[in-house]
């Protein structure tokens, strides 16, 4: 009898393609449970769908369309793309559409509204679709031609990924957060360490993290080149999803004797101070002390990586009663309308505004060069977002340092890269 034990991802993929067992590097045809597109590639997807000559979307109840990258629209080009998307949504009866002011960043919207459930196969026209793995789903990015085919057929092929098990143990106390943790993991894996692989995050540290914090881990799995990132659902996941859907979903779990291509053990005690990914890559990670004092022109708290309520709470704790440094500017963007509302009610936004920050409605914003917070030649930014490739957020000579909300907020106050530890207890 062959070895039937499977990892979590192998189980999800086996179920989706209707086989008893799948093995890494095998090619499988998956039935898609959820397909997502947004304003950056939605109009492109719609054009490709029309080219296919399809008459219907395979299942309009399984498609989610969200406007997030360029909203509210900045010019006629972006407005036209959004018009095309709305026409597409209407024409094919797409059941889940999130308009400006009612949604937020797609990855956050999928999770907080309960679109993603454990065991699902999720595809999106966005590389950070990996984020949804925090709910125990297989979630991966695809291009627009493939999305057009998914919308027509409900099917997508996949090369079954190897599973890299990252076991994380130890406490993670302020000012450290899950952002420092994923940067530490990226420094071990590098930007190509997980190509055609799943990163499965586990261990006591992950169990202790809130679901919001876990989302930061799966979000940046793609930065190691991974096909997807995933976390086994537990009580916290179920509470989160019950809150989002009103029901307790069924879970899929990996077998205890499953084979992992690689195991990496992380002890959080080895992370001595907050971490920063210096330009030009998310894996170019250094302790904050190595770059402390670097002047910053802009600081950004937000994005699908770190725009959740607890991120805003941490940043606000540091900003409260202080001012953004006169030589820099701070942009704060809640990741979704729900978070925006909660941050309003808790007085967080007022605190940011009083400190001299620019607070915006939910959008991807300055994470990439899209419609706001664009960096000029030679400008330096510190951001809670996920990528710092040259030119990612503006002029090719601009530079981005990636860090946690605590480090970014502390740096905004000082006008230079700063260890948030100095703000402890003040």
């Amino acid at each position, binding site marked *: 009898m062959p070895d039937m034990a499977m990892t979590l991802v192998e189980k999800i993929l086996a179920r989706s393609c209707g086989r008893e067992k799948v093995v890494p590097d095998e090619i499988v045809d998956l039935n898609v449970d959820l397909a997502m597109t947004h304003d950056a590639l939605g109009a492109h997807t719609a054009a490709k769908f029309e080219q296919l000559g399809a008459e219907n979307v395979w299942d309009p109840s399984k498609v989610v369309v969200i406007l997030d990258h360029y909203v509210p629209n900045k010019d006629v080009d972006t407005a036209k793309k959004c018009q095309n998307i709305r026409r597409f949504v209407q024409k094919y009866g797409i059941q889940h559409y999130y308009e400006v002011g009612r949604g937020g960043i797609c990855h956050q919207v999928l999770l907080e509204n309960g679109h993603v459930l454990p065991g699902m196969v999720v595809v999106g026209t966005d590389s950070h679709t990996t984020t949804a793995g925090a709910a125990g789903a297989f979630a991966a990015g695809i291009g627009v031609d493939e999305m057009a085919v998914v919308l027509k057929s409900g099917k997508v092929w996949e090369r079954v990924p190897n599973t890299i098990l990252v076991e994380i143990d130890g406490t993670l106390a302020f000012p450290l957060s899950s952002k420092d943790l994923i940067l530490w993991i990226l420094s071990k894996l590098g930007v190509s360490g997980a190509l055609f692989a799943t990163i499965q995050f586990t261990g006591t540290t992950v169990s202790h993290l809130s679901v919001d914090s876990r989302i930061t881990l799966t979000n940046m799995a793609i930065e190691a080149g991974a096909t997807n990132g995933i976390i086994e659902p537990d009580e916290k996941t179920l509470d989160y999803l019950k809150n989002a859907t009103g029901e307790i979903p069924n879970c899929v779990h990996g077998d205890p004797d499953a084979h992992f291509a690689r195991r990496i053990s992380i002890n959080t005690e080895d992370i001595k101070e907050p971490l920063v990914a210096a330009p030009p890559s998310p894996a170019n990670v250094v302790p904050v002390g190595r770059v402390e004092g670097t002047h910053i022109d802009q600081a950004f708290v937000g994005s699908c990586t770190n725009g959740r309520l607890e991120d805003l709470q941490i940043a606000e704790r540091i900003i409260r009663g202080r001012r953004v440094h006169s030589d820099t500017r701070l942009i704060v963007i809640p990741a979704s309308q729900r978070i925006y509302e909660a941050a309003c009610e808790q007085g967080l936004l007022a605190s940011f505004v009083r400190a001299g920050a620019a607070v915006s409605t939910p959008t991807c914003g300055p994470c990439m060069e899209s419609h706001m917070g664009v960096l000029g030649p030679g400008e330096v930014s510190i951001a809670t977002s996920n990528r710092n*490739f040259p030119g990612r957020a503006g002029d090719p000579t601009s530079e981005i340092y990636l860090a946690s909300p605590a480090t970014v907020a502390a740096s905004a106050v000082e006008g230079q890269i700063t260890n948030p530890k100095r703000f402890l207890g003040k």
Partner: protein
Amino acid sequence: MIIKGKVWKFGADIDTDELFAGRHLMGGDETNAEAYQEFISGSGLSQARNRSNVPDGFLENVRRGDIIVAEENFGIGSSRQQAAETLKFKGIAAVVADSVHRIFFRNFWNLGCPALDVPGISKGFSTGQEIQIDFGSAKIRNCTTGEQFDYHLCVPPWFMNMLKAGGLIPYHRSMNR
């Protein structure tokens, strides 16, 4: 099927922001094939100039049918298919790299352009040499030095038919008929 072309040797970690900057994503009319191609060709690779992982003179001198040979992790980053389209519309016939990022790999094939991940291949080539890819025998040859490499592709069985059809959309259209 055999393709042959002049090599442009790229470095590691060519990212999608480099291939197609975010500022151009909302431009171009995808419903007008010719205008779209012109837009992508004109705006793509805009940030690649002066990058150490891109060979000198590439933007100015790339010709239709040329082939990129690269080090690890070609195409890391975004889902944006424009990153693959910009290479296709500049005339790149294939990308052969030590490793290729998953989304770029799929996007390039879907446009009817092969991407091959062949560990260690980059050491066997330099810019200006001639490369031949024989899909029938799964062999890559450096026609300048005579060196030969085997490759193994992890793709669905219908991929070569898709390549012959000119990409994913034409392949599906042909199946509808």
